[in-house]
């Protein structure tokens, strides 16, 4: 991980802000995948007829995701306040900021593929296509995911120490809002 963060900074993503965003996308993607894959068979998603106070959140989700409410959000609707907070974090993580939503979706697809999440892989692949990424772009993300699933295991098997962290430029800017 250190090597690619360093390499990415040397390739132009020198500031820390994009890397914070990537980390947040990675975390919340995994969080939804865990619920989706773990609960798919045992806790069916609620819908507008059964979700009660969560229907307003469903409307926001549909507006963001091309008319769909991904199944794990439907499962979380059993606690509308919890759903609202998870949704708010998700929407923030995937919104255009320093990184585009398109790239964030590519990151989420890579995370889902790497963690073997059936839900996440299908959902984020569909989102990538909906956001205009072509088959070439999809294959690019698959290729990077596959190759670095190889390098990481080679590094782990030989217990290689990271030797590239120090080559990245350091962002000395203050925390947001400072």
């Amino acid at each position, binding site marked *: *991980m*250190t*090597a*690619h*963060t*360093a*390499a*990415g900074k*040397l*390739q*132009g*993503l020198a500031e820390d802000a*994009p*890397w914070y965003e*990537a*980390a947040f*996308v*990675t975390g919340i993607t*995994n969080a939804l995948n865990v619920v989706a894959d773990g609960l798919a068979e045992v806790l069916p998603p609620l819908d507008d007829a059964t979700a009660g106070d969560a229907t307003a959140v469903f409307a926001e989700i549909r507006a963001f995701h091309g008319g769909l409410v991904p199944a794990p959000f439907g499962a979380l609707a059993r606690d509308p306040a919890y759903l609202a907070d998870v949704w708010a974090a998700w929407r923030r993580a995937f919104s255009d900021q320093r*990184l585009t939503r398109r*790239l964030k979706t*590519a*990151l989420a697809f*890579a*995370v889902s593929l*790497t*963690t073997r999440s059936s839900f996440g892989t299908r959902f984020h692949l569909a989102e990538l296509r909906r956001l205009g*990424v*072509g088959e*070439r*772009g999809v294959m*690019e*993300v698959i*290729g*990077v*995911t*596959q*190759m*670095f*699933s*190889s*390098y*990481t*295991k*080679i*590094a*782990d*098997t*030989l*217990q*290689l*120490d*990271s*030797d*590239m962290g120090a*080559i990245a430029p350091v962002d000395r800017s203050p925390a947001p809002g400072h």
Partner: protein
Amino acid sequence: MPTVRLRDADEYPDATRKMFELSSQWFAYDFKQPPAMSRVMAWDPEFGAPHGRAMKRAMGPGEFTRAEKEMVAAVVSGVNACSY
């Protein structure tokens, strides 16, 4: 600590050392020693060369930039819990 001794660049044959120069170009950084992973992959060029070509093909600019792909690689490494 690595479970193998990583050979210094000057322990490799000339042809391999030229490949190490490509590592510096790839990372846009002048290393004192090539990165550990470069030296590992150089151990068996018949494995390392095609693996490296596949990596470079995957990482080359296309619909996504090289920097964006480094970020994809970083999150893949992160969820694989690989600190390297």
